[in-house]
């Protein structure tokens, strides 16, 4: 089960900001009158990857594959059950109490549902200034000035600070959520499907805002999404998750042009192409069956029950996490291409 990533940091543009090794997040299942633990849901089961400073790592996969759990575990919103999360050389998987609280300003999160991520009883001003209050960053006039700057930074009228969240549209609320995440000037932001609940026209605005902010503030993103075209647009590298494991990790163009893992191929074949001629000829790989229960994953390769290329070995032996060698990354850099599959040469 242990699949340690060979860190390909030497070939990369930036040094790793976040390093994840064998991250495990199991949720216990209790049953019966005595509420005894009868098993666990392996939402995240042995993830290893690096996120380099200044890059956007896309994390894709179907619903329930553990993407959001991974993002939340990275920010220590859960007590992780195993593995290491290293943030700037410091292991944060075991931190607790004030030591963890002191790390919070460095890493923030943008949430999926703009309806649920803002407290309906607080004004926008107090929502954005909550992080400032909690970490005693600013008070009084200085705080109001900071809130004003943050609202301007996300393209909103600073006068809106006195309003309540329900007075805004979904896109505006998402901007408020982004302003809150920026309040403590973090280095690393987990974007947990920030555009999934938005209109297509608003999606573009929010994604462009995120890109602008990244450029201005040098942010590092973990961008979780199931929208592959958006991932292609925003990400530098992409990790594909299936049932709690990463099956393929590659630079974005490499992944979209030359996917190696059969699951990635199936996933990519579902992306519509905005050209009728190509779209008519597009061959879809239709997967049969359902995602297996993460409380009882199949032996061997997790994907073997649905894989069109499966051989006998797949259901027996778990594929190792292999480096296929360098591939062309974004901005002319060279990145490694990782995959976990027996059938890939």
């Amino acid at each position: 089960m242990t699949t340690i990533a060979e860190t390909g940091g030497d070939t990369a543009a930036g040094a790793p900001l976040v390093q994840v090794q064998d991250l495990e997040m199991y949720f216990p299942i209790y049953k019966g009158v005595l509420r005894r633990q009868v098993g666990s849901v392996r939402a995240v089961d042995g993830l290893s990857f690096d996120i380099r400073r200044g890059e956007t790592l896309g994390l894709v996969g179907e619903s329930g594959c553990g993407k959001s759990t991974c993002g939340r575990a990275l920010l220590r919103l859960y007590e992780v059950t195993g593995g290491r999360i290293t943030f700037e050389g410091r292991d944060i998987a075991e931190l607790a109490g004030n030591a963890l609280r002191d790390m919070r300003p460095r890493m923030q999160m943008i949430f999926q549902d703009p309806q649920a991520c803002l407290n309906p009883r607080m004004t926008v001003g107090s929502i954005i200034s909550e992080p400032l209050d909690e970490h005693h960053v600013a008070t009084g006039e200085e705080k109001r000035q900071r809130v004003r700057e943050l609202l301007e930074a996300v393209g909103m009228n600073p006068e809106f600070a006195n309003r309540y969240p329900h007075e805004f549209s979904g896109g505006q609320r998402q901007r408020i959520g982004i302003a809150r995440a920026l309040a403590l000037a973090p280095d690393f932001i987990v974007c947990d499907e920030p555009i999934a609940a938005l209109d297509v026209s608003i999606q573009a605005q929010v994604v462009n805002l995120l890109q602008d902010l990244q450029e201005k503030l040098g942010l590092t993103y973990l961008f979780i999404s199931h929208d592959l075209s958006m991932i292609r647009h925003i990400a530098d590298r992409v990790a594909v998750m299936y049932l709690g494991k990463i099956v393929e990790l590659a630079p974005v163009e490499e992944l979209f042009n030359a996917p190696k893992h059969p699951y990635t191929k199936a996933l990519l074949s579902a992306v519509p192409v905005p050209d009728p001629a190509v779209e008519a000829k597009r061959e879809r790989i239709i997967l049969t069956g359902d995602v297996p229960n993460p409380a009882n994953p199949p032996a061997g390769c997790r994907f073997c029950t649905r894989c069109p290329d499966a051989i006998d070995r797949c259901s027996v032996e778990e594929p190792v996490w292999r480096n296929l060698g360098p591939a062309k990354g974004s901005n002319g850099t060279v990145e490694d291409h990782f995959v976990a599959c027996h059938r890939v040469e």
Partner: protein
Amino acid sequence: MTDAALPNQAPPGEPAMRPHRSLWRDVWAQFAVHKGAMAGTGIFVFIVLAVFIGPYIHTLDPSFIDIRNKNQGPSFEHPMGTDQLGRDTFAQVLAGGQVSLAVGVTAMALSLVIGTLIGVLAGYFRRLDGPLMRFTDLFLALPLLPLLLVIIMLFRDTLRSAFGPETGIFILIVFVIGITSWMQTARIVRGDVLGLKEREFVLAAHSIGTRQHRVISRHIFPNVLSPIMVSATLGIANAIITESALSFLGLGFPSDFPTWGRLVFDGVTFLEQHPERVLYPGMAIALTVLSVNYMGDGIRDALDPRIRSNR
């Protein structure tokens, strides 16, 4: 790094940002447009003033027995007539109101505090959920009347000697009503908290590093205010009525000590000859309960920013 990239200066000539608008002024503005709430407040304030200032204007002693003037109808001297012992009914209703209101409000406050505390703790801390909710079930399963009997039997004399007969029994009754009526509130609050704590804004507060007690006071508590307000308004009515029942059983205040509930039960015997004797204190109870319910309705709406902006 962030500061350098963000626009630091407000454009010249633009007014400085207004301070956050005052929450309580907004709340009052919304409360004031709720007609029912304003009427309820008016009636409640009137009842409170009448009950506490009235005895200085209508100076008859409520316990003065004037047997020759018994069972009289309304007159200038006795606006609500007299009872079977010649005591002035109006003076009794005023004196009874003092006790009933005090018992109602204090017992409601006590049961609300206990219920909210247990509900929030049980809903928020998973480890406390089981023990606290089983504790609540235990209280719900207790046969209430025998319990009250035992408590009052055990503690009446001790409290009487410690605080005097009236204060002692007042404390006892408030306490007894308070600790036997918090369970519904606790259950409702727990249910709401369970839902709220999974909302993303609570998760966002955790990711900021907000401490637990702040998460509860800033994010959880304000969002469960609505069911608490409803419980509060129903609680006053419930407390007044329970106190009446206790007085009827001879377990409440002494028989010569008027409360609204006691007056109703005393009047029941003469319901056929003098129905008004039940009607006056009964109306006082009904008006109080109704006005408090409307007030609660108004407060609940006023505290909800979504309703506040729809006016």
